């Protein structure tokens, strides 16, 4: 009986000490349950009425961002393709331009060569015509000079001998005299 009494008193002491610890820490099971229930109600209310709105908004914004990112990616791809197309077109245009320039150079060269040939031919023609003109002028001048010389010689002879020979004799004498002169002096 005494043993039982000791055990009960020990249990009572332990229980009191335990209760004292919880009391000292301020733990009150009623308050603890009340706080847990209050917080759970808060979570349930927010989870039912507030979180769906906020999360839907975040998801919607995320979808918009994803759509924007996809559109951006597609635009980037299109831009890249367009750049490639432009590069190809530029390359082709450069090749064509080079061909055109080469053709133009060739044609210009041909035209210059043809013009030069024409100019040379025309120059030669002009020179030939000029030479012919000069030759004709020289011949005419010589003929005129010969006639004038004949006249001068006749006139001089008439003045020296004092009589006039007939025209036929004059001409014959003068011709003989001129013929005896060296050709370069004519």
């Amino acid at each position, binding site marked *: 009986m005494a043993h039982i009494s000791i055990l009960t008193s020990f249990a009572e002491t332990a229980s009191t000490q335990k209760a004292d610890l919880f009391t000292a820490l301020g733990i009150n099971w009623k308050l603890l349950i009340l706080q847990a229930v209050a917080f759970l109600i*808060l*979570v349930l209310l927010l989870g039912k009425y507030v979180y769906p709105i906020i999360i839907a*908004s975040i998801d919607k914004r995320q979808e918009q961002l994803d759509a924007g990112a996809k559109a951006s990616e597609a635009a980037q791809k299109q831009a890249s393709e367009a750049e490639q197309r432009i590069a190809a077109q530029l390359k082709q245009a450069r090749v064509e331009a080079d061909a055109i320039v080469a053709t133009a150079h060739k044609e210009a060269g041909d035209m210059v060569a043809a013009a030069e040939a024409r100019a040379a031919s025309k120059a030669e023609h002009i020179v030939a015509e000029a030479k012919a003109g000069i030759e004709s002028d020289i011949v005419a001048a010589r003929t005129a000079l010969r006639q004038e010389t004949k006249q001068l010689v006749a006139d001089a002879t008439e003045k020296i001998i004092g009589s006039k020979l007939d025209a036929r004799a004059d001409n014959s004498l003068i011709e003989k005299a001129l013929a005896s002169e060296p050709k370069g002096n004519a």
Partner: protein
Amino acid sequence: MLSPLTSFAAETPHISLAPDTFFNIGPIPITNSMLLGVLGYALVIALFAYMARAAKTRSRNRFAVATLWLFEGLLNTIEQVTNNRKAARALAPLSITLFFFIVVNYWTGILPFVGPVTYNGLPLFRGLAADLNVTFALAIISMVTVQIYAIRTHGVFGNAKRYLRNPLRDPAGAFEGILELIAEFSRLVALSMRLFGNVFAGEVLLVMVGFLTNYFAVVALPFFMVFELFIGTIQAYVFFMLTIVFISLGTAQHGSDDDHAADKQLPTSHTPPDKRARPAAASD
């Protein structure tokens, strides 16, 4: 003889581990932490209502943008830890509410009228998070949620096998199970005590700084208050993070039977195998 000592003691700041009871409503004692807790709850509800309105109206207000950015950051953190978008959305109401609830109640405990305003010589207000009943309640809710998710993943017996194994067939596993069981309780105690200890220490720090600096408290206290705001945010994040890590650990496959099996994640998991990863072990 004792008179100077008692008068000195009467002038010392009032520091008590337990919240002070002012009156009772039926069997429920109403404490100073509950009085300030009403403000805390009201602020949390107002904050979430504001966030919902801002999200609905796409408000560009800086505060709205900041709170929604924080909300989204926390949601992304849950998603990264659980590796599961759907599970992250299921866990969000509890874990994100925990974060905001702790931050708001930690910060309300720093308000200047908490402590100096007294009734019958006792502080009329006390931070709700400086009440062990609250931190214990939050920790119990977290750990019960861990067990609910673990049971949904492994089944009742599968989950029990994590703690109770046949010592004749697998002595090491049986010992590990006991350690795991102890770890669950230690996590519960650690979660609640860490938060309570930080809040209570912060409040004591503010009271003592105010008491020691006397008239210069106006200059000295703001620095410590800002520091406490920072600590409050950190503690809320730690509580939030540990809750989701414990849930993630509870839903991960363990044990020799499953060594060659692919890691199984949360019940709603549709995660591709390459993205499945065992979450980092909690340092608790």
